[in-house]
């Protein structure tokens, strides 16, 4: 791997005091990496459909004055204009961001890296990971090489690539991997800028390998995720997280985030995930879980914290099952539960009530 060698040389350099040549070598390696992935990056444009992204209330400061317009146009949120997609199979399957299709467009046009425009068909969507699957009639398309998930490390260089605003040469923005396993284990986090123009495009390493597909994600919903574009907090969903649901997406399924129906202690615990509440009628209550139980294992894996349970649920979508083991007093119980779609209205668990009081705390005690 030529570029691997280059990347290694670069990463061994002293940060913060680079020579001109070191910085040039980094940018040359980056450009070569972009060149490798560029044939797999497409422009996605939509036509028709009903705009559903509402105009947002204007932002005001604490004295009620409108914030200055050069920073942010009041009343307008980003819309799904031209965006990006990543080819994942030579026969024309393309991963894009589900955000691009919130308007339910009547026509989708994909423009390949060679300039060909092709009508595309929207198949399934995984709303848990914010991913949509498109298909174009094409053969022999280049596909990206995926970076093995275990090789992705916090602090490594990462670049977001997209074709939403450009044709020939894709747009490239640089940063690092800020975190792995974010948003309940769904995504890699990066400080490379991400915006509607490169949603659906790849986040790559310096070898041009795919770290993940750039997707607006937030624990507080799609609108919040899209509004924080270009903020230095961006997410990419690794292909390894999409592969398990790919056959369902190809069949046109609409996949929803999974819901178990328990509240758990999310702070540090002596063992497992102590249950603080169980929603009646939920999968958890159906399996016989009760308040005060301690969930010890999911699918044979020991839970160290309540967060680990939320991560495990986050890796699933509604309709999938998981095997739970829990302790009640001296007894241990085990059951297979089928996760469901989160009910429209759920009574607030104590954990959720806490969250409302302090929105800034990114706690997600109920899932």
């Amino acid at each position, binding site marked *: 791997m030529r570029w691997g060698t*280059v990347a290694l040389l670069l990463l061994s350099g002293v940060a913060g*005091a680079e020579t001109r040549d070191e910085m040039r070598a980094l940018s040359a390696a980056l450009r070569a990496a972009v060149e490798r992935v560029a044939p797999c990056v497409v422009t996605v444009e939509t*036509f*028709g459909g009903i705009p559903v992204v509402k105009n947002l209330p204007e932002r005001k400061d604490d004295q009620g004055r409108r914030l200055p317009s050069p920073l942010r146009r009041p009343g307008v949120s980003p819309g799904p*204009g031209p965006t990006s997609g990543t080819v994942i199979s030579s026969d024309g399957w393309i991963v894009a961001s589900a955000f691009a299709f919130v308007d339910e467009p009547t026509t989708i046009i994909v423009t390949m890296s060679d300039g060909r*425009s092709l009508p595309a068909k929207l198949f399934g969507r995984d709303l848990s990971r914010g991913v949509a699957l498109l298909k174009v009639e094409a053969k022999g398309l280049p596909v990206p090489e995926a970076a093995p998930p275990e090789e992705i490390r916090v602090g490594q260089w990462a670049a977001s690539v997209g074709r939403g605003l450009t044709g020939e040469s*894709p*747009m*490239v923005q640089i940063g690092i991997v800020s975190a792995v396993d974010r948003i309940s284990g769904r995504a890699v986090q990066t400080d490379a800028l991400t915006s509607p123009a490169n949603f659906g495009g790849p986040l790559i390493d310096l070898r041009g390998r795919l770290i993940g597909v750039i997707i607006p994600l937030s624990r507080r919903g799609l609108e919040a995720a899209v509004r924080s574009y270009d903020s230095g907090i961006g997410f990419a969903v690794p292909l390894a997280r999409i592969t398990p649901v790919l056959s369902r997406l190809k069949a046109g399924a609409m996949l929803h985030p999974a819901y178990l129906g328990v509240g758990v202690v999310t702070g540090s615990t002596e063992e497992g995930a102590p249950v603080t509440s169980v929603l009646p009628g939920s999968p958890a209550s159906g399996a016989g879980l009760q308040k005060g139980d301690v969930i010890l294992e999911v699918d044979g894996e020991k839970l160290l914290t309540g967060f680990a349970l939320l991560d495990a649920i986050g890796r699933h979508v509604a309709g999938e099952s998981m095997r739970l083991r829990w302790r009640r007093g001296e007894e241990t119980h085990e059951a297979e539960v089928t996760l469901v779609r989160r009910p429209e209205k759920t009574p607030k668990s104590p954990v959720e009530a806490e969250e409302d009081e302090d929105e800034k705390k990114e706690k997600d005690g109920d899932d």
Partner: protein
Amino acid sequence: MRLAVVVLLGLLLAPVAAEERDVVREVAERSFPSVVKLHGASGFARLPSYGTAVLVHPDGIALTARSVMLETESLRAVLHDGTRRKARIVARDDEREMVAIRIEGPGPFPHLKPIEPGEARVGQWVLSIGNAFRLADGDERPSVNLGLLAAVTRLDLRLGLSDRTVYRGRVYLTDANVNPGSAGGAMVDLDGRLLGVLGRVLESRATRTLVSHAIPIEDLAPLIDRAVKGEPHEARREERPPGRHGIRPFRFGLHRSPPAYVDRVDGGSPAAKAGLRKNDLILRVGEVTVPTIRAFLREMKRFHAGDEVVLTVKRGTTVLKLKLVLDAPRKGGER
């Protein structure tokens, strides 16, 4: 790619001189004297009364982004050493919304040398230098952001609340965010050469997101030239009416922003000659995507009789490119 490897190895093997360390600091220090802070007229609704300009000529000619705050007798430039000097607009580029100013006082002024035309590369490092949020006063240094030249592209940009197109030409996009006050600042490369002049924070009409951009310096050469010669305005272009295309888009009753489906093509019109048909969906006018009828009609108004326009249309499951040659509008005009 192979060439890139050779070049890279050459760079990596090159001996490292001690003074070459910390290149970003060195370039910033070298560029600061050519970046001046501007203070102009205030009192315009929520618009900043400050900005930045970049010196490009020893006679004190500097470039900056057009702004109402420049339109005053009391425009002042604060030089690197904190000296306040009078300045005035000497030439304008209305299309790019850029102006050249002349700073009074004895020269020669420090100034930045431009890159060679066509030398900019997407993925190269750039420094954005400007007085973001007027954080710097007197002899304080303006703000420096490091980032990449993220893209070279033509954008459908608009400014503030108006829906009017600002500029359709080539711009450099950067991931080193540009902020209010930085407009008119410098985008420089790792040799301290000027790539472009930072524009105002603008909104992409397509994605409704703010973009940080610079106008390429090579496109501003005529402006500098006119400033030196003392020709404030460009030669006036002849105003011509839009040409006729003969396309009647289908207007849906309930839809607020319908896509541009063709309802009818006027017999014998340029569209008819090009083979456009009822029910074709117009996707693009030239390079510009037109998601709505409104966007389509607005875009077509930019072309005149005799102009060639390539329309990208979807017909059934195929995408076609059709070339129209517009003719003169008939009496009574077109919608």
